[in-house]
């Protein structure tokens, strides 16, 4: 019986050998694939095992971390003034992933970025836990607070974007109604409930929408600044104070429709200055149709229209169509028809004018820091385009300043500061059935420099229709944001 016994022994040996080979396959050959499989929860556990780095505004962090008591994720994100900063930070949640800055700079914040590899390896050898780096933003706490509080006080949907014209630094980025990302940062039932409540399907206010970057609104009369720039740049009119060829009433070319002005304002052959001061639809509509679709589009593109911006958080692409007939071009040139812009885009328009014609690329990440606060990467201001010459920019500045001094934008005046701006009231809904959007774009000048350009849009569904104007709803908020920036620079 011993011969078969020996064969059985070999058979048993083969069974063990098969297990050993399989084990080597799993734990050596396939180990990395399995370990880094995104479905392997260990990847997430490691991600939340150490405190996340912070997002910094004005030298102070606007984020934090807390240890969770339940579940296998150790740390969760917390936010200070989360609702105010949500359009900047986005969120990072144990259950719902990450968005915006939290997502784009995830590598730095978690410490997984390649630039931290050497440090991580050292830490691993010395037994120190991995740390995340910091993201230092360009934002201004004072401006952000002014913007958010202004919108909140108004209690209406809206957004604010503010830029430093000389660099493109984003100073404020507010959206209302907003949400507290802390409420969905964890993995508990209450986080799930909060998430459900914030979901667009259950919440018509859509608080998680970043209106400053991701929503496009018809810009209305604020777009006339772009049209004026196009008129000057293309030599249609050379100065602010020469008479324009503007009949009143004016029938749009190719149609029998007359373009209307708001009330009886002195628009007949008005100068560009007067036309902007009173916001003449007829003058700027005709400028647009005189220049034609191509030239208007070219100028709009120089201001950033039709392109997404990566700040690095992506903004939606503003719209200016390229296939319009003269009457459609006329309507588009006063910010109606298909024309649509994000608040960031309109802030860029004001910013380019204020910066003597040079548009700087907007950005919100000033620098990335290693856990020991060494700078890993610093963003340098970058010129994006030159929508208008310095001379024409100064002409346009004087026109916008007239608007604030004695035109539709008087509510934005600041003592001792030169403010230039433009109001806008954009139709909304089919046949203008819904309350219009109230717009205001402006910049403030202290001495020769312009520290801030801002765009505000307010969509007040509850206000009485007649009371809705850029001047009444949006300009006061823009004023407070500009004041906040100027005061914080003092």
């Amino acid at each position, binding site marked *: *019986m*011993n*011969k*078969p*016994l*020996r*064969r*059985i*022994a070999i*058979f*048993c*040996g083969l*069974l*063990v050998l*098969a*297990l*050993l080979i*399989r*084990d*080597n396959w*799993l*734990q*050596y050959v*396939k*180990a*990395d*694939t*399995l*370990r880094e*499989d995104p*479905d*392997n*929860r*260990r990847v997430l*556990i490691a991600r939340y095992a150490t405190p996340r780095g912070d997002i910094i505004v004005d030298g102070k962090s606007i984020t934090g971390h807390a240890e969770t008591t*339940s579940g*296998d994720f150790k740390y969760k994100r917390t936010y200070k003034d989360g609702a105010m900063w949500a359009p900047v930070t986005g969120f990072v949640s144990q259950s719902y992933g990450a968005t915006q800055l939290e997502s784009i700079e995830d590598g730095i914040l978690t410490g997984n970025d390649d630039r931290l590899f050497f440090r991580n390896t050292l830490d691993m050898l010395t037994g120190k836990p991995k740390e995340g780096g910091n993201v230092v933003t360009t934002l201004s706490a004072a401006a952000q607070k002014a913007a958010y509080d202004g919108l909140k006080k108004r209690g209406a949907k809206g957004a604010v974007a503010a830029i430093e014209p000389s660099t493109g630094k984003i100073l404020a980025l507010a959206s209302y109604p907003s949400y507290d990302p802390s409420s969905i940062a964890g993995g508990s039932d209450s986080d799930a409930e909060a998430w459900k409540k914030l979901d667009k399907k259950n919440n018509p206010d859509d608080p998680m929408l970043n209106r400053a970057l991701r929503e496009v609104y018809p810009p209305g009369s604020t777009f006339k600044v772009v049209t004026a720039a196009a008129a000057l740049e293309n030599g249609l009119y050379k100065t602010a104070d020469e008479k324009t060829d503007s009949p009143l009433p004016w029938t749009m070319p190719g149609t029998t429709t007359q373009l209307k002005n708001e009330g009886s304002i002195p628009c007949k052959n008005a100068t560009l200055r007067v036309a902007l001061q009173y916001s003449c639809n007829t003058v700027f509509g005709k400028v647009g149709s005189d220049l034609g679709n191509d030239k208007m589009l070219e100028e709009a593109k120089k201001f950033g229209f039709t392109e997404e911006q990566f700040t690095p958080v992506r903004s939606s692409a503003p719209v200016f169509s390229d296939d319009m007939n003269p009457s459609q071009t006329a309507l588009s040139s006063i910010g109606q028809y298909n024309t649509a812009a994000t608040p960031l885009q309109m802030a860029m328009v004001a910013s380019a004018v204020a910066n003597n014609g040079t548009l700087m690329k907007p950005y919100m990440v000033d620098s990335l820091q290693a856990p020991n606060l060494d700078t890993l990467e610093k963003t340098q201001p970058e010129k994006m385009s030159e929508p208008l010459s310095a001379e024409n920019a100064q002409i346009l500045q004087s026109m916008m300043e007239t608007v604030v001094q004695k035109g539709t934008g008087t509510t934005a005046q600041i003592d001792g500061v030169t403010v230039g701006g433009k109001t806008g009231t954009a139709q909304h809904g089919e046949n203008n059935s819904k309350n219009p959007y109230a717009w205001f774009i402006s910049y403030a000048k202290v001495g020769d420099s312009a520290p801030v350009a801002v765009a505000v849009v307010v969509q007040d569904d509850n206000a009485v229709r007649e009371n809705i104007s850029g001047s009444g709803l949006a300009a006061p908020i823009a004023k407070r944001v500009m004041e906040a920036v100027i005061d914080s620079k003092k």
Partner: protein
Amino acid sequence: MSSSTSNTSTHHTSTIGAIGAPSRRNTELALLVFAVLIPVFAYANVGLAINDQVPAGLLSYGLGLGLLAGVAHLVVRKFAPYADPLMLPLATLLNGLGLVAIWRLDQSKLLQSIGQAGGKATNQLIYTALGIALFAVVLVFLKDHRVLQRYTYISMVGALVLLLLPLVPGLGANITYGAKIWIQVGSFTIQPGEFAKIVLAIFFAGYLMVKRDALALASRRFMGLYLPRGRDLGPIIVVWMISILILVFETDLGTSLLFFGMFIIMLYVATERTSWIVFGLLMSAAGAVGVASFEPHVKQRVAAWLDPMREYTLSQTVPGHSAQSMQALWAFGSGGTLGTGWGQGHSELIRFAANSDFILATFGEELGLAGLMAILLIYGLIVERGVRTALAARDPFGKLLAIGLSGAFALQVFVVAGGVMGLIPLTGMTMPFLAYGGSSVIANWALIGILIRISDTARRPAPAPAPSPDAEMTQVVRPS
């Protein structure tokens, strides 16, 4: 093997027994010290990794395991002095490491929250004590394993009853996903299959010892194979049918494969006919494929084996699917070559049965490829000692019983470890000695007890025969 040849050729001489094989009891004791110290060290390691302190229970755990090992050693020293010196230390080591892993998983909040952990290590220590007690009972009362031969047909009935118990209405407990291999007695659940394994081996050994000549010799030669006569096919058909029935009614591929495989091994050893192996493989393949093609539970296990990721994705949304297989693979992969270290893995993600059927994944993740290969080799070594016992045994019943038990042990290790590692479809069986579960620990200690009894008989010096009248005329040539 040399011992068996010398035994057969020289065991009637009066002088060879007087030399005496060394008992190796001190070797066993020295090895046992390591088998206790290694788990104690691991236990301290877990405490330091999870709670940053040496666990409070370290002393009592160490003393408990040491005491059990000591008792087992003394029983062997007294009642089976010539037993194989490796089996007891190896089993103790595995049992001790299993206790550590169970205690480690007891610390998992996730497993506690789903009632899969907390106090399980204490229970397992009690089961271990019961197992060692049964081990001692076997050695004390079973003076000679050949006594078991008398109970051949009682064993058959016993094994059938044990196997059928889970199917009895009111007694069967449907604990896990589908497989009906447990019975509920009061608050305890028992896995009768673990005991049936031993009882069945006794029956097969007794039966085959009697029938082996008929099965081996009365055969026709066909295409190089000796085909058995039709009427001799009876037993193998019956066992095959029972295996299939187990598969169909208890939906347990592992147990079915284990019993059929054990029978084939013993049949082959008894008859020395390779044709039985061929028959056995064909029949088990036919049975497994046939059942897997219509039994939904088995079918799902096969699907999960072929594509564990798909099963995982399904488990996230569709009830009745299990994420375990994929979770186990992730655990192994995350452990890598050297493992995360005790207490620092996340094998609790396997959730259900993390400390029983899937306990090998915890070893894989926390001790890595190196540690798991060591564990597998320890199992291999136990099997090797069992086969060596079969080789050394002097009586055919002992040989058959020893190879049956060792073969079943090897098959069980292969089926469980292969299932957890995704080498073969997953089955509902436990890793001997490592996994949490009373039936498994107790039954396997009894199995080791029987093997130790056989090895003791095998290695024991033959009793001096009565003085031969013609002794003077015979010249004894002593092997030098």
